[in-house]
């Protein structure tokens, strides 16, 4: 299902898109890193992750072309097995295809590269075009890259588990970025154990797609060709809790935000806001409780809200009073100044 076209059909198109400048730059940089049989890339893997092994002089770069994602995934597994059984050689898999089970349905993933070390262990390589300035890059972008790589590590582990003896998938991945303001590649080893554990747990906890589908009413359809109101009703049938973080991750976020705002949910102001307000979940509930019109005064959240409302009103009143006084004072001062200058003028 294409969520972007669904969002457009719902009347809240997503704002995702990539500038062709960034796209071209990313492709050009990746091509440069992988040029010459991946010599530069393997040099970085050797230098940053596996200094003990012999330098990668002659590396294998198996051909992974096949028809369809299933075919490519099978071809990748085969290449990985062969590479692992040839100790003492470096192997670079350029754009392999991996399959990962997500909530009961297979998802196909395409890492930038996977390297098989001479000892038979596997490393994920992620090539990004944001710069590494003086050895450090934007932490938010590095975090996103690490989360992405962790998913690849999980998928590789599933492939490894099917081999006997099963090879080690390294938990330190290689992040390759342009150095400073040049287009020379530089690498950094990133430990993704934490991201891997988090992603693994989240994947295990995901509600099975089958269960979600079972819970839907009979005949629900998400075709973008449907009239908007029918489509909205269909989307409503799948429960979703919107939070502002969704805006940077999901194509349907603007639609969910509009629904969330319509319902007056306080989460649309951020998850911390929601956490502060206890059992009160809508804007009207909170404001009514703060005004003393609703809510149980024994509830600590309600009591705190009323105190906050009282203190806020008092502070605003004080400020307004000060402003009036100072305005009067200024007026008086101006008047005096005027009088003063008049006097001066007379003399």
């Amino acid at each position, binding site marked *: 299902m294409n969520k972007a076209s669904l969002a457009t059909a719902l009347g809240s198109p997503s*704002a995702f*898109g*990539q*500038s*062709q*400048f*960034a*796209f*071209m*730059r*990313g492709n*050009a*940089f990746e091509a440069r890193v992988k040029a010459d049989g991946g010599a530069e890339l393997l040099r970085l893997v050797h230098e940053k992750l596996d200094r003990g092994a012999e330098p990668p002089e002659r590396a294998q770069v198996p051909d992974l072309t096949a028809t369809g994602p299933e075919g490519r995934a099978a071809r990748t597994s085969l290449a990985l097995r062969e590479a692992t059984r040839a100790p003492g050689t470096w192997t670079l898999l350029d754009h392999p295809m991996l399959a990962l089970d997500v909530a009961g349905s297979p998802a196909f993933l395409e890492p930038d590269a996977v390297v098989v070390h001479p000892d038979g262990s596997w490393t994920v390589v992620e090539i990004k*075009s*944001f*710069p590494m*300035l*003086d*050895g450090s890059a934007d932490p938010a972008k590095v975090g996103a890259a690490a989360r992405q790589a962790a998913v690849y590590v999980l998928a590789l582990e599933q492939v490894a588990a099917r081999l006997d003896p099963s090879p080690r998938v390294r938990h330190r991945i290689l992040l390759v970025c*342009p*150095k*400073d*303001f*040049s*287009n*020379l590649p530089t690498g950094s080893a990133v430990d993704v154990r934490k991201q891997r554990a988090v992603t693994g747990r989240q994947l295990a906890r995901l509600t099975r797609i089958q269960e979600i589908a079972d819970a839907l009413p009979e005949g629900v359809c998400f075709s973008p060709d449907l009239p908007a109101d029918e489509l909205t009703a269909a989307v409503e049938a799948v429960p979703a809790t919107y939070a*502002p*973080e969704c*805006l940077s991750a999901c194509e349907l976020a*603007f639609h969910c935000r509009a629904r969330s*705002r319509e319902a*007056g949910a*306080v989460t*649309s*102001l*951020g998850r*911390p*806001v929601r956490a*502060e*307000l206890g059992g009160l979940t809508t*804007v*009207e509930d*909170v*404001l009514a409780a*703060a005004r003393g019109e609703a809510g149980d005064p024994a509830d600590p959240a309600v009591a*705190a*809200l009323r*105190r*906050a*409302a009282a*203190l*806020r009103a*008092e*502070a*605003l009143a*004080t*400020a307004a009073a000060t*402003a009036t006084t*100072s305005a009067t004072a200024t007026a008086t001062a101006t008047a005096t100044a005027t009088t003063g200058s008049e006097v001066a003028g007379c003399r």
Partner: protein
Amino acid sequence: MSLITTLARLEAVRTGRAQPAATVRHRHLSDRPLVFVPLTTAGEAGAPLGALVGTDRDAPRLLVVPQPRDRDLRFAFLSELADVVLPHIEAYADAVETAERTETDPETGKRVKVEVDLCADAAQLIVPSRAGVEFVRLLGRSMRFRRTAEQDPEAPHPAPPRVPLLGRWLTHYGERARVPGSSLLLAMTDLLGRHWATGQSTLEDQHLGALLAWIDPPEGASGAETALRAELARDADGQLLCPPAGPATDPAFDNKLLAPAIERYDRARTALAAAEDGLEADERLAALTAAEREIRALVESRTRPTWDAVWRGLDLLRELPAGAHAEERWTRDRWSFTGHRDRILSGEPPQPRRDDAVTAANKLATREREQARLDAQEALDDPLVMAGRRLAGEAFAGEVVDVTMAYSEGKRPSPRPLVTVRTEDRPHLGDRVRVYRSLDGRPQAAEFAGQETEGVFVLRIVDKMGRGKEPEPGSVPEKGDLVCFTLFEHEQRGGAKLPDPEQTPWTHGGPPGEAAAVPEAADAQTEEDIL
């Protein structure tokens, strides 16, 4: 975010207009701020696309890089930027007044007062958003290690003369922006977000157009709707009506308008280079100029709305009365500005890529101290901020219900009056906890001496009552007075002094030694800068 701000946000949702989050202006605003609205090229580090810059809201200077991947054109842009920014900064650097500063005499080791120059005012730089502040840092980093032809005649691609100097100033501004409460370099979204609470999340508040729509919607319109339009509305060509404040541009703009225009420019340039005679060259030069003018118009169309928005934000902020302590913090900014001016005048090398251990520790300590200072001063200046501290149990306000005179025990008894305060606040008071109130702008300390009943506290005033046996008039609150005590200190004491760089212990890398004496090399440059 305190519950009081949350309430303000919810109130904003209900009314459709932003609500005050402050009653005074907590940042200094210069009379002549330099506004800088930069744009960058997607996917390239430190490749500016253009900018609007200036101090006159009606006449910004438009700077454009028609082909951002061309090093010479980028240098031309930076050189032009230096021509606008450096004279502005230097005008402030030249006007000085004398100030006193305590310094440790190197010979005697005593603290002595010395007279030094302090810039009478400092140049203030305003950018639209937080990403703009980061971009200023990035520009500074990309420029300060460049070598001019004069510094290094051998280097390929020398930088124009004043570009490294601009890099050092921008680095200083970017670095200073990380100090809480400083106002040398400010982001308009942060400024507005500090003073108003909107009915959207802080994440969405990063959009300058939407933020302004909440604060000052057009007559008769709801802020919420105007904000939504500012955020999402597109014209028939799919372009945003309110372009993002940058420095990143909208991908739709890049792909549909900018990329074709740059391509036309590139073609016109190639054609000009291939011209065979003067007549043909003239014609092709005209085509090139037209292509360049087109890109300039595009860049202006994306920066001008943001430029106007920044100035509108300044208007709104100027309507608020200045906070009492904002000026004092600005004086610290002036010291910082003067310090950097002096370092440049004395010929010090540019700021290093990585700080040494002592500098890094000093910076961290400064940021922590300034954060505590900012928190205390904002609360003292603004009853709305104080309300948040009262809610958190860090301050309390109430009425004095009783004053009993008492004296300290000792040879010379000093006054230690007991003041009983009734309050509805719930401060976290333990035995002998110190509390402070502001007495003519200076903190007066008291000790918690006991609780009579629920909400009635007895405090023992301990200082600021003069040297005599009887307290000076006005120094002790009287019955019926309204007082406000805080549990936090009003003035921040500096921490322990750090060793000189030469005394850095080996655990922290040891003394800088010879490595630091060698000036840092310029960035490596690759031949094909154009990918």
